[in-house]
């Protein structure tokens, strides 16, 4: 051993000797953890605060595991471990040191139960413990945790952390957390007044909740300040609530647009009353499910790409079904709307029952890729990622379809056939095939709408039924045969719905929208954007 190493070892020895008494200030958390084995929920709550009070940094990961439900005790000796499933066994690691303690059969360990209340207590305790973490992100989430579960015990910890904090954002959050904890403590009125000001600047719904919670126990002079602060936050939020409502309306509108856009082609352009349209959407959703199952089984790494892969698959599957449907059934029924309605209806029932027989009647789980989960705050608004992407997606499809119809040869032929079939035929266009491919295109688009809708709705055989009425409503309201009408119709119905909902409720709101549409159709039978010219009369 060289002298350098000797020195190192020596230093480590001294350091550990110095460190040991530091841990001894609080009790050793190990026996406290082992007591969790036969504690009920109330006892566990006491134990958690005692464990947190030891201040031992090693308890952080153990408490995190407890909140996750990964803490188990061994039946033979009631020793507490963190357990992870490893095949038919569980792999045990020591709760405090993280050292492996070998495997054990599942039957030999029992899970230590945790409920919402305990999770809350653990979150608050962890917040206090990790305020001094060297990792900026951990400190930020610790401050958040303290902010969300105010307790006077955390006040001194926050103040200590605040004194050392250098990062501006974390510092602001800690000041807010300090203000929240201070309100529930027994500090002076002046300090509390300053705290109210800080929370008022923090703003948002959470701030209102925090202030109202403090209202009851507050000094009379503070109560008026709290009232003023709440009123001022509510004033700020009023405009944001309006924006939020418009956003929800656009989001609902984009879902309506997605559901209706395929129908805008099969019904709007071709004039087929296609009751099986909803089932095309459903088939698209099931295609997504199958694609995701294959990816889960064979290439889990690609999961975030599953929707991108599902799009062409859904388009081809539903497009093919649409093609077969047109060639097999609908082409014999052109010009006979009632028969078309009944036949496509029958087809929709057959498709539903077929899916029910193949995949079973229960819902299937279609996962959200990570980029479609969660939300972010935008001022006083909450924007969820899945809704944002669905709006982007529906508009993309809409404009792609517009370009296809207006700028491609296929689109030109399609328009020619729908406007004047005989003349188009004389010009050498094979009208039957144009019909078939137009119908396939409409069905394929319904299929890719299904991919998007699988992210927000059930994937069950009944999926299509819930969209068919809405789709017809949008196409008729917007004006048959006009894609722009479908866009404007969907968005205005969405926004109308969302402005009615808060005041009259969802049930009455839906009824009112239907009544308004009926009245509107009385006045303008051809919808918002009526087609003009000879084609209409034909």
């Amino acid at each position, binding site marked *: 051993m060289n002298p350098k190493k000797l020195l190192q070892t020596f230093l480590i020895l001294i350091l550990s000797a110095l460190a040991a008494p530091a841990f001894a200030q609080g009790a050793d958390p190990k026996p406290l953890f082992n007591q969790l084995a036969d504690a009920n*929920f109330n006892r566990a709550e006491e134990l958690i605060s005692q464990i947190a009070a030891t201040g031992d940094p090693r308890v952080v990961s153990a408490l995190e595991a407890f909140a996750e*439900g990964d803490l188990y005790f061994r039946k033979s000796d009631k020793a507490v471990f963190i357990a992870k499933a490893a095949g038919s066994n569980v792999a045990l690691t020591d709760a405090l040191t993280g050292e492996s303690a070998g495997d054990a059969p599942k039957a030999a360990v029992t*899970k230590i*139960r945790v*409920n*919402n*209340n305990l*999770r809350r207590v653990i979150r608050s305790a962890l917040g206090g413990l990790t305020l001094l973490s060297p990792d900026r992100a951990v400190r930020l989430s610790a401050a958040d945790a303290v902010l*969300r579960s105010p307790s006077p015990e955390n006040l001194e910890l926050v103040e200590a952390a605040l004194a050392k904090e250098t990062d501006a954002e974390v510092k602001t959050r800690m000041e807010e957390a300090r203000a929240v904890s201070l309100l529930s403590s027994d500090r002076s009125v002046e300090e509390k007044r300053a705290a109210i000001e800080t929370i008022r600047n923090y703003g948002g*719904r*959470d701030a*209102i*909740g*925090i202030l*109202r*919670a*403090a*209202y*009851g126990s507050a000094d009379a002079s503070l109560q008026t300040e709290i009232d003023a602060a709440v009123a001022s936050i509510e004033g700020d939020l009023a405009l944001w609530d309006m924006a*939020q*409502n418009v956003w*929800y309306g656009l*989001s*609902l509108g984009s*879902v309506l647009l997605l559901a209706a856009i395929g129908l805008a082609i099969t019904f709007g352009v071709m004039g087929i009353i296609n*009751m099986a349209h909803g089932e095309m959407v459903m088939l698209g959703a099931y295609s997504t499910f199958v694609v995701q199952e294959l990816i889960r089984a064979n290439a889990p790494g690609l999961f975030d790409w599953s929707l991108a892969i599902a799009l062409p698959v859904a388009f081809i599957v539903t497009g093919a079904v649409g093609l077969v449907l047109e060639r097999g059934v609908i082409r014999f029924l052109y010009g006979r709307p009632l028969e078309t309605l009944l036949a496509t*209806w*029958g087809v929709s*029932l057959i498709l539903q*029952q077929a899916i*029910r027989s193949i995949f*079973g*009647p*229960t*819902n*299937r*789980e279609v996962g*959200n890729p990570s980029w479609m*989960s*969660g*939300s972010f705050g935008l001022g006083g608004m*909450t924007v*969820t*990622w*899945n809704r944002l992407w669905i709006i982007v997606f529906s508009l993309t499809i809409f404009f792609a379809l517009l370009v296809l119809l207006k700028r491609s040869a296929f689109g030109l032929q399609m328009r020619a056939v729908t406007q004047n079939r005989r003349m188009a035929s004389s010009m050498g266009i094979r009208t039957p095939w144009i019909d078939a491919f137009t119908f396939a295109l409409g069905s394929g688009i319904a299929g890719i709408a299904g991919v998007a809708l699988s992210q*927000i*709705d*059930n*994937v*069950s055989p*009944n999926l299509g*039924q*819930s969209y068919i*009425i809405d789709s017809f409503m949008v196409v008729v309201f917007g004006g048959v045969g006009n894609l722009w009408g479908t866009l404007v119709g969907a968005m205005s119905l969405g926004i109308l719905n*969302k402005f009615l*909902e*808060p005041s009259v*409720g*969802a*049930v009455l709101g839906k009824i009112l929208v239907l009544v308004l549409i009926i009245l509107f159709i009385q006045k303008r039978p051809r919808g918002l954007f009526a087609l003009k010219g000879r084609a209409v009369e034909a």
Partner: protein
Amino acid sequence: MNFKAKLGGALLAAALSTTAFHGAFAQEDTIKIGVLHSLSGTMAISETTLKDAMLMLVEEQNKKGGVLGKKLEAVVVDPASDWPLFAEKARQLISQDKVAAVFGCWTSSSRKSVLPVFEELNSILFYPVQYEGEESSRNIFYTGAAPNQQAIPAVDYLAETEGVERWVLAGTDYVYPQTTNKILKAYLMSKGVAEEDIMINYTPFGHSDWQTIVTDIKNFGSAGKKTAVVSTINGDANVPFYKELANQGVKAEDIPVVAFSVGEEELAGLDTAPLVGHLAAWNYFQSVESEANAQFIEQWHAFTKNDKRVTNDPMEAAYIGFNAWVKAVEAAGTTDTDAVLDSIIGVSVPNLSGGTSTVMPNHHITKPVLIGEIQADGQFEVVQETPPVVGDEWSDYLPDSKDLIADWRKPMECGNFNVATGKCGGKGS
């Protein structure tokens, strides 16, 4: 969508009525029982499972030698989620197929549709789903939970353990949520909850855009008091509701949601990781640790040849109802309706949560109430279990039913006896 479902149901029904299939080979010496669950239409999602469970129970009973020395034969019909068709199919089962008893129905509408048929033709129905109460029939046994066996203990748990003071009662707009919420509101107000601390919200069937409502719930929850949501949202609408909750970041630690219609089956279509801690109240969870349950799950997996199939509360209710009927028939020595109605009262059979359930004179049963929290694997973990509770058909918290009781034993034999006036009759007669 409703008219389509109806017409669709009617079309399918027409197609299927001629092909109603029979469960086993017709034998001379068999006792027939009817299975009346929708296998197509909107309710197939829930009811198909119960049909399978009944077939499994019949198969198991036949392995044990059947009933009264005869084999059981299940007659399965499909009422296609169409309420009037339920009555027709029930009539067919009783009059043509001569079944000894019928196990079936899911929605209250379907039960109300068949009730007069069972009373007129004097047969027996076992109804295995939680319901709103306010009913008692001589010919129906309610083995699912009444409101006091599900809703009230759940609210008590939230108030006591989580300290909830503000309540959102959210439901689908039909009879079960409306009645349950009426009872819950009366109960909460009797416990001193102020009217402005209760928000009631109804949504249409299959509602899929929950953005506004989840925001409303968040706003309602920012009044500085602990808030919880009591959900009677039905069936398909739950998946988008929970997805929206997860996406908007409503955590169970902040605003817990306790549901009465969400079980293992409904969670099968969801990623439950963001939902850990939200609650459900039932009388049975698949995760319950008992010998009877372990055996039941094993039989179910073997019967369905799929070890991923989950079990749920209505299956347990069907299990209890079926076994109680078997025991009553053996005691009576006949399948005759009147004799069985007499002998079944007081019959005790094991339930799946490790205890026994007894059929009470009001045609409801005793069972414990379990409160469970959703886990990341789609199962529930029991956080509270009550002692067995007797199902209360007429709620004590509604002014026009608090004086009513049901007792089908002789000599009273009354489903709506008014203890205040001492007369049989009144509401529900």
